[in-house]
């Protein structure tokens, strides 16, 4: 009888981890309030949200499944070009130019390529994976550069027209609609990612990351799960790219470029991998820093980014959120409920 009682407690403990917590709700409300607080910075804010979504997609692969990737930017770029081309071919009218259909198209294309290339990262060490993902990303970048008739090459893709959202809201020049659109889409994506990661699927990824040998020994289909998460993450990156292409009505080589993969990875590591929110925190700090320091001189920005990276690797292992959690566990262990030890990376 006491055992069944305790089973009930344990079920509550498990379910509690998946429940939305106050800081999370506050976070999303605060994010929404920026719309009112910084009306002149809306396009920067949209960009941060998009970057955060890209970093979130890496988080699923790296923070949960433990697969390092330097190529997530390729899926971002694929999504951007897909959405931009759909907008262009649709000439501003639904269905092709409809933004939501564009998102779906981008997710499908990126997901397809992600699925096809996922088999390349199943084996090998971290280093092999880094190089394979980088290699694939570079191939896609080169391809975008060379298929000039399709992508516009280095001039970028002009003439992208996007229909009003749900046939009702047109993108305005102040970026108001764009921000709301990005916010809603990124939020929906986040909720999906969060749900997946708190489900048995997400837990099985943590098992794979923790000990693939044992995961196989208990009958966990490791490769299948990795293919799945890689594909899902590619779709998410594709959506992020589509958001950027739609809100800027433009697609360019810059959107598939290597530096985007690297930036997004840095952002995630900086914010903290494995928390789902690391990408958001990282993207904010990164872009704001870039704005402030980059305004002085571009070299300043690069220099300080480099310094931050060095310090990050040497001194703070789990990123900013890791640091926060560490401080919390140390000084106020009961503030946010029990630490989900699982999310430590």
């Amino acid at each position, binding site marked *: 009888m006491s*055992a069944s009682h305790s089973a009930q407690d344990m079920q509550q403990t498990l379910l509690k981890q998946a429940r939305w917590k106050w800081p999370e709700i506050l976070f999303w409300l605060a994010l929404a309030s920026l719309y009112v607080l910084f009306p002149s910075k809306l396009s920067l804010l949209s960009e941060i949200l998009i970057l955060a979504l890209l970093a979130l997609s890496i988080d699923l692969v790296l923070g949960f499944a433990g697969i390092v990737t330097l190529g997530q930017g390729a899926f971002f770029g694929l999504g951007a070009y897909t959405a931009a081309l759909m907008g262009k071919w649709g000439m501003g009218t639904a269905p092709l130019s409809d933004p939501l259909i564009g998102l779906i198209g981008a997710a499908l294309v990126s997901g397809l390529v992600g699925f096809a290339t996922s088999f390349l990262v199943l084996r090998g060490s971290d280093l092999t994976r880094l190089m394979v993902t980088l290699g694939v990303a570079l191939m896609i970048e080169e391809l975008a550069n060379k298929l000039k008739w399709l992508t516009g090459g280095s001039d970028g893709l002009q003439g992208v027209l996007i229909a009003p959202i749900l046939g009702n809201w047109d993108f305005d020049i102040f970026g108001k609609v764009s921000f709301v659109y990005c916010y809603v889409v990124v939020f929906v994506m986040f909720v999906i990612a969060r749900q997946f990661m708190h489900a048995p699927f997400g837990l099985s990824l943590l098992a794979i990351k923790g000990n693939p040998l044992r995961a196989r020994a208990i009958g966990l289909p490791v490769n299948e799960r990795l293919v799945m998460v890689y594909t899902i993450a590619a779709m998410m990156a594709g959506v992020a790219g589509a958001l950027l292409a739609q809100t800027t009505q433009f697609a360019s080589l810059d959107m598939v470029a290597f530096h985007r993969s690297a930036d997004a990875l840095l952002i995630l590591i900086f914010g903290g991998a494995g928390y789902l929110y690391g990408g958001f925190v990282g993207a904010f700090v990164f872009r704001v820093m870039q704005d402030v320091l980059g305004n002085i001189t571009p070299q300043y920005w690069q220099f300080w980014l480099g310094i931050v990276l060095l310090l990050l690797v040497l001194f703070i292992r789990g990123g900013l959120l890791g640091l926060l959690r560490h401080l919390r566990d140390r000084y106020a262990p009961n503030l946010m409920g029990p630490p989900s030890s*699982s999310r430590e990376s």
Partner: protein
Amino acid sequence: MSIVLETKNLSKSFGGLKATDNVSFQLKAGARHALIGPNGAGKTTFVNLLSGVLQPSSGSIWLDGQDITNWTSRRRAISGLARTFQINQLFVDLTPLQTLMIAIAERQSSGAHLLHPVGSRKDHVEESVELLTRLGLADVMTQRVGSLPYGRQRLIEIALALAARPRVLLLDEPAAGVPESERGQILDVIDALPKDVALVLIEHDMDLVFRFAKSISVLVNGALFMEGTPSQIANDPRVRQVYLGEEEIAHV
């Protein structure tokens, strides 16, 4: 009694070293079998071959009359073959509860479910809690596995294998490295395992082996040196010579 697990002329070489040498071995349903042999005899390698961690150089492995030589670890596991590891192979960043939830979900083919949070399946939670309680881990269910004392982690090794509800369980030195005071607990757990599960125990402690085993195989230099009942093994002069110290055998 029927044979559940069998190997035919199983061999494995690492370079020039024959770690498993032409081993033909049979395990009956519900067996209590001990596999002994000096350090480096190839016991762990044999278990790695059986569980699919390693691929044999030659020979075959049969489970319930099916040739499983080319099966993946996963397929063997879901067909009822489970093992523990001599050196802990656990998910150190998860909790014991989460660890078992994973294993049970995989057994029930619901490990890829995306929508309902972990813990939604009450039956899975109940089974995990029941198993952990049975192994005396009730008080640490929600602590980080990596933070637990070594003896506790050894128990989780066993719990994790049991969560798959195996019909054949291979235990690779389950009490290795566990302080004397905690060994008893592990032995009790092994004694209490369901009678229909065929057990193979690898162990260096002869007291334990003779207390547990109904049959014993001795492995030397990768090859099966001798098989028999505990008393046959204990009284065989050749076994004494290659493996058992005289004084160890004296009090059996």
